[in-house]
């Protein structure tokens, strides 16, 4: 986040609103992690959303997967997969990708409870995603809808951007789909996972993040701002 200062300013401004729901209030009451911090000391929440489409204004989140990185180690036991009841029938195409059926989703949580749960996980953590456009736009869209706020202040890293910057620096050429999660994992000799759901994808992203960080050199000394 280039404008850490602005984000924090906005965060404090939001806090002055007296009608915040508890989960949002708790999240906002903690300062955002600063760029000068060493990443070995930071806790990361690695996120993946599954959505019914790309357009946040029209489509919906159907599941949220996440896992935690602490001391630059992924903690698999922190991994969770939250299904969201979309209150609408799924298009067949998405079912094929996510392997989630209407039946399963009907047993999922209402959107507001799912976001409550997510916010409680985001407190004091830096968010990591692969291709931040989806998660960012959907998260903001949801907050607009649920809490009437335009932007959720957060610090988010994007493994795709990290890779692209690295390649630009070394002037490497990449095929258009070379930056996809699956292909990048292969590049770093990471295992190929069968399952394709938000939780496993969050773990995949987390492992990719560890690999990228390790390739940056002395990871004990890397500061958060070097990854933004």
């Amino acid at each position, binding site marked *: 986040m280039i404008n850490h200062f602005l984000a924090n300013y906005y965060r404090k401004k939001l806090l002055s609103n007296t009608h915040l729901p508890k989960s949002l209030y708790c999240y906002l009451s903690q300062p955002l992690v600063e760029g000068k911090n060493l990443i070995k000391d930071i806790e990361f929440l690695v996120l993946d959303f599954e959505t019914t489409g790309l357009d946040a204004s029209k489509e919906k989140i159907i599941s949220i997967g996440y896992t935690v990185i602490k*001391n*630059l*180690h*992924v*903690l*698999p*036991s922190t*991994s*969770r*997969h939250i*299904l969201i009841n979309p209150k609408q029938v799924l298009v067949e195409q998405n079912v094929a990708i996510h392997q989630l059926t209407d039946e399963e989703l009907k047993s999922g949580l209402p959107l507001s409870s799912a976001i409550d749960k997510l916010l409680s996980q985001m407190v004091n953590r830096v968010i990591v995603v692969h291709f931040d456009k989806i998660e960012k736009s959907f998260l903001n869209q949801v907050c607009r809808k649920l809490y009437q706020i335009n932007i959720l202040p957060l610090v988010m890293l994007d493994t795709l951007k990290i890779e692209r910057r690295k390649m630009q620096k070394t002037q490497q050429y990449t095929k258009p789909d070379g930056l996809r999660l699956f292909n990048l994992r292969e590049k*770093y*000799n*990471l*295992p190929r*996972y*069968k*399952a394709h*759901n938000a*939780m*496993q994808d969050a*773990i995949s992203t*987390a*492992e990719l993040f*560890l*690999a990228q960080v*390790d*390739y940056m050199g002395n990871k004990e000394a890397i500061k958060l701002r070097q990854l933004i």
Partner: protein
Amino acid sequence: MEIEDLEIIDFFKLTLPLDSATPAQLESLITKTQVAYRRKGHILTTKPDFLYLVRKGAVLIEDENEELFSILGEHQWFGYNSQLLLYTHSCQEDTLYYRIDKKYFYELFSDNAVVENFFLDANLETSLKSQKLIKQNSLLTNSVLSMSRASDAYLVDKKTSIKQVAKLMTENTTTSVIVTDEDKLCGIVTDRAFCTKVVAMEVDTSSPISKIMTNNPLSIAHYKSGVEAMLLMANAHIRHLPIVKNKKVVGMITAADLLRKQSHNVVFLINEILVSDTTDELEEISKQVPLLLQHSYESNMDEHDITYSVSSVGRSINQQLLKQAEELLGQPPIDYAWVVAGSLARSEQIAHSDQDNLLILADDYQEELHEQYFIKLAKYVSDGLNACGYVYCPGDVMATNKKWRQSLSVWKSYFKQWITSPEPKALMYASIFFDLKCIYGEAQLLDDLLTNVFDMTTRNTIFQSHMAANALHYTPPLGFFRNFMLDKNGVNKKSLDLKKKGVVPIVDVARVYALSHGVRSINTQDRLRELSDVGGMSSSGANDLIEAYKFINSVRIKHQKRQIKLGQPADNFVLTEEISSLDKKHLKDAFGIVSDMQSAMSSRYQTSIL
């Protein structure tokens, strides 16, 4: 959709020996599993607290000579053998790996023999491979359970009475017991508690032991290494650690167990000496003394600690020989004091040296009745010492010599003779017989003698003058660094006898002052410190002399360390080219101090009038 759906669970199921684990165990294992990544060609840092499992990639293990020890791929473990943690682990490929809390892992599978045996077998295999390593490193990398002696752990229920526990401890000569509550560790009691709690606080001995135990003591898991146990003990200032496996006590590791694993350790050596039954055994043990020296040198021990350690070993050998002799000959018919003289008495021994010893017999000594006993006793000890490398005294100052095996009153008359008519021979004896220490038997006999002696030495100024003049016999080689002053025999050309020219003059000065001021300490540094306390010597003078003494000894020790390393017998002849220019400068200063002190002593005791 939660943890059971993670791919890592599927991976665990395909990994030996986890294929035998239950789904619940695997899920539980996940809670203590972390995922990490290391890039190709880089070192993977391993910690003793974890087991490691390769998920993807390859890990290369190399020994200290960078020789390939093993390559591990997917589904393979490392870190279970703590000896191998000293080897270099590096990634031959980009590697994703899991690390799992070792303690948790072993506890989780404590009932699963398949898992336990898997690592035991793997351990055995790698142990065979790494025998070279085991030999080089101390055995402290073995697990604590393998190091503890089964008899070390005495378990008592917390309801047992204090009296019963005391009885159990006495019968089994153990210094500690573990207190359990339904088989689980709940406390520990060491013999100290009987002093600090039972006696000092007047606790009723029919109360349950839980009343005086230390609650929830620290413990160590059975697979941890001796090094870890040692660190734990050092940090917590404790000497006993219960060993637990799945919360149950399976043994006890003590500081003594750990020391026993270090054969070059002085405490170990003394311990071995004290349990030996024959001279042959002692002879074997005393062969360790050069090793002890070498180890002390290498661990950069202070010269005072080194000489103290070596002297302690010497004293222990004397004591054990006397114990053996008494067992052989029966109870002594009368009280006696076994007294050593010289560097051993002063705790200033560096290596094996001649034996100087004597017997003071109680005044009810009757030659016709008792002589045979003490002849045999002295012979047994003296022969034993000789076998152990403390060779017979060339001057025959040994208890085997009838002259030095006398009753207290005879000894008093000897000293009276030497002090009142100090002839050259008497003065030579004086320098030996004024550094005495009783190390076995009735110490009061020596005390009585010394009280008598000091009464004379502090008052007899003529004797003091003679002693002072005698102490000027050896002088520091002030001209040494300009043109080398060599010993007259010329054997050690361009070399300096640091003992005679450096150490002895200081020891002699300290003795003269001590005798005239009634200072009863015999260690040179102790003498100097006490002299400064009682005003017998200015504190700056005493301090300077102590520093000079320490420095000269440190150069001497450096020299011997070099000799031992080269496999040569250690001596005191230091070659000039061995000494660094900085040391030379300091040595010159040190000799200057000694020389000044000698002059001061000379005028203080008016040696010129003799």
